[in-house]
């Protein structure tokens, strides 16, 4: 009987030890990582193409999870004690600036950092830009025609009551696209206020004032009456426009072109607001305490090469590459052709959390009449 109980005890210990052994991480100092987990923010097919190419190139088994920008930030914050991901690839830079501010990112300087435009390199090399793109309006031609509305060419056009329940954008808390949209309005309102009275729109450090942010909230409260739904991911409204669920989607212009290339040519049309639109610099960073730091650094080095940056165009992700040696697809919307606002990424990053919380509390849950 005694023997039996000893045996049972051993068996129990053994079963308990198996899962424990499984969690003990392999010594990370010496090991050349043979796996890499990427937190991927752009559209899924690009994530697939990138991770496959990296795996073929390096032999490192690469997996990814796609999450929208705000979602990614929230997840990294929630798991900072024991991060699941090693590298965060894609999504507007202001989320990276917010993450660095919170100590969630480990600076790392890749060799190719020197070829990047100045604004595509984060403070202390905390993040690096991988692509750029501007916000536009992606409209369903047929629906607009029925509503008797021209494709919008200004932010004011979106407030037209004829577009009630016919506009969609993402939720700024989850989506970087939507946050870029929000900050674009903040910038425009700051410009307006500054034109009326010096110091009213921008403070001494050149950051938009609280008054400008309040004015932006007023704009979105009005726009809310026309919004059908706030989606989770930034590009999703484009699909809604393409499939005829809404007339106008506020999304990145390259995502609208992607739709046109992928079967919705002639169905959706892309326009820009004349008074100015915002743009993103898609970021990339090493996550602090990354479980696979070596592989992550290798990814960061690789992702800035022209070969890696050219992958986007193969899956119709037509963002503009940041490495000037990368050939640009002729389909990509060029930033030179668009009136861009003076988008302050640092100010946007610093105000991010406060704005998305306020948006979620004050705008998103409001009923519409």
């Amino acid at each position, binding site marked *: 009987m005694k023997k039996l109980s000893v045996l049972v005890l051993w068996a129990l210990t053994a079963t*308990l030890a198996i*899962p*424990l052994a*499984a*969690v003990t*991480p392999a010594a990370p100092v010496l090991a050349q990582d043979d796996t890499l*987990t990427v937190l991927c923010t752009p*559209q*899924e097919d690009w994530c*697939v193409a990138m991770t496959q190419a990296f795996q073929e190139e390096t032999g490192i088994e690469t*997996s*990814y*999870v*796609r*999450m929208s920008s*705000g*979602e990614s930030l*929230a*997840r990294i*914050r*929630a*798991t900072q004690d*024991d*991060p*699941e*991901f090693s590298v965060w690839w894609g999504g507007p830079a202001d989320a990276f600036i917010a993450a660095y501010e919170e100590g969630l990112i480990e600076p790392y300087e890749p060799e190719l950092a020197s070829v990047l435009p100045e604004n595509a390199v984060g403070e202390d090399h905390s993040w690096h830009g991988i692509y750029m793109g501007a916000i536009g309006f992606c409209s369903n031609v047929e*629906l607009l025609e*029925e509503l008797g509305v021209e494709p919008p060419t200004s932010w004011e056009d979106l407030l037209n009551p004829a577009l009630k*329940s016919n506009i969609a954008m993402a*939720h700024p*808390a*989850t989506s970087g696209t939507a946050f870029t949209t929000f900050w674009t309005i903040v910038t425009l309102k700051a410009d307006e206020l500054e034109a009326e009275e010096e110091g009213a729109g921008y403070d001494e450090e050149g950051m938009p004032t609280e008054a400008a942010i309040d004015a932006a909230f007023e704009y979105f409260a009005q726009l809310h009456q026309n*919004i*059908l*739904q706030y*989606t*989770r*991911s930034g*590009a*999703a409204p*484009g*699909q*809604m426009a*393409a*499939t*005829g*669920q*809404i007339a106008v989607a506020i999304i990145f212009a390259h995502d609208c072109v992607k739709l046109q290339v992928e*079967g*919705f040519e002639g*169905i959706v049309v892309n326009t820009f607001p004349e008074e100015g639109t915002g743009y993103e610099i898609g970021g990339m960073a090493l996550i602090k305490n990354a*479980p696979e730091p070596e592989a992550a650094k290798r990814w960061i080095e690789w992702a800035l090469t022209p070969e890696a940056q050219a992958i986007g165009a193969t899956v119709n992700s037509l963002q503009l590459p940041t490495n000037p040696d990368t050939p640009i697809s002729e389909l990509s919307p060029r930033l030179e052709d668009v009136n861009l606002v003076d988008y302050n990424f640092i100010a946007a990053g610093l105000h991010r959390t406060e704005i*998305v*919380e306020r948006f*979620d509390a004050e705008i*998103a*849950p*409001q*009923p*519409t009449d």
Partner: protein
Amino acid sequence: MRTLTRNHRIAEFRRITQDPVLFVGLVIVVLFVIITVISPIYAMVEESLTEKGRELFERYLTSPVYQRIFRNTMEMGLLVAAIGTALGFVLAYVQVKVAVPFKRLIHFIALVPIVSPPFAVATAALLLFGRNGMITYDIFGVRYDIYGLDGLTLVLTLSYFPVAYLNLRGMIQALDPALDEAATNLGASKWRVFRTVTVPMLIPGIAGSFLLLFVEAIADLGNPLVLGGNYEVLATRIYVSIVGLYDTTAAAVLSVVLLVPSLLVFIVQRYWISRTSVVSITGKPSGTPQVINHPLVVWPLFAAVMAIVLLIVIIYGVIFAGAFTKILNVNNELTLDHFDFVINGYGSEAMKDTTQLSAIATPIAGVLGMLIAFLVARKKWTGRHALDFATMLGIAVPGTILGIGYLLVFNGPQQITLPVIGTVTVIPKLTGGRAVFGGAAAIVLVYIVRSVPAALRAGVAALSQIDPAIEEASVSLGADNFGTFRRITLPLIRPAFLSGLIYAFARSMTTISAIIFLTTPRTKIMTHQILNEVENGRYGNAFAYCVILIVIVLAAIGILAVAVGTTTGAEKTTIEGAA
């Protein structure tokens, strides 16, 4: 039996402790329920009562915006529960009691929604009835705005009514035809029989279905995410608090707000059911049920049933068609690309993971369900109501709440410090990508917790239709508790066990709200992937996932039905193996 005194119940409890098999079973069940159901809910409530939580409570309860969201949630829940239960009842009644053609086909089609993820229906509904709908616009030329309450009611009802149908069908089948015959012989009309015999006998089933549908509807996350429009409900608010802000306190507070009506309905229903329950004491039905064949009853019912069937067929037709075409209704070129993506491509991982985890959870949930059913329905011990109640919480609480509770409790190892031995890890970290089995353990636990209640109810319902005297006879003849359970009770409730297993597998394969916060880079779940595909408008991939998921679940049902058997053994007129 109801007048058992406290002393008797304690004595009964002692009797259980003296039966080693039963006692071990009881201990396992109680520990399991405490760890996997009670502790996450407790942690969530605790989080909501922190200082910050109390402030948020005040803000939400006084804000007209949140009052509106709360009303929306209730309105949607009640609508879906009422319509869904009614649909389920009509189908079940027609299926068992009315002479209509194509019964097997109707049955099969009515079950399809249960084996498919909810987004399938929502997405197909968008394509059919949306602004650019193949029916609303292409046929009727109407730009119908399906986003909001009407669309949600439609898709949620279609997604969940099969639960009511299955429940009620089982119960109607279990009704003893002798009762109908007796009533008819005493001069009652068919309508009177229906009203005074059939319906009262089914009240527990109807109430139970209503309860299930109500909590399913108010807890549903996938459908409001796809076509909620500006009709905000609590589940989507909770979702944004977690995925967008990772504000567990706000999520916990909103969850408690969602928890209160769920629990309230649950408690009221239980009390009400227990007062109005009518139990036949004849064991299993032995005769053939009387069938209604009056044409004025048959044909209107048949038309109603066919309308439902047709709607389901069209919706799933869209899903199948969409899975095989490039972009349905835009570019109808046939393609296998979407299946390639799911089977060979990126989606294969999620497909394998989800099937494996569900296959692990299913037998555990089925056995636990029957065991708990036996313990609470047949043994009159102190604490059986508490055990029943705690188990039911697994489904009574919305899935999002369970998910958040798991994040709060299992995001680190649970340790206790013992003298001499030191700190011992009792439960390792279960959630997140760095947890044991890549976070899969937490997902399996959630699958089990969400599935056991249905198995339990099916088990209790089946047991309450069987006279305990049958089991008492077995015990009198010298069999022990375990032997009686295995050889008498289990075969008699075999259909309930089977439906518990089927429900567990289908539920696990299709659940989203409870696991959406628990998926990790190493554990990918199909429903979560489908949501991604739907949200980004790659309906083809989403539909291919759905088709494959449906095929997997149907195959599993076939395997389970063969392995477990669908009959009780009591249907046969000859008694075999008298020993």
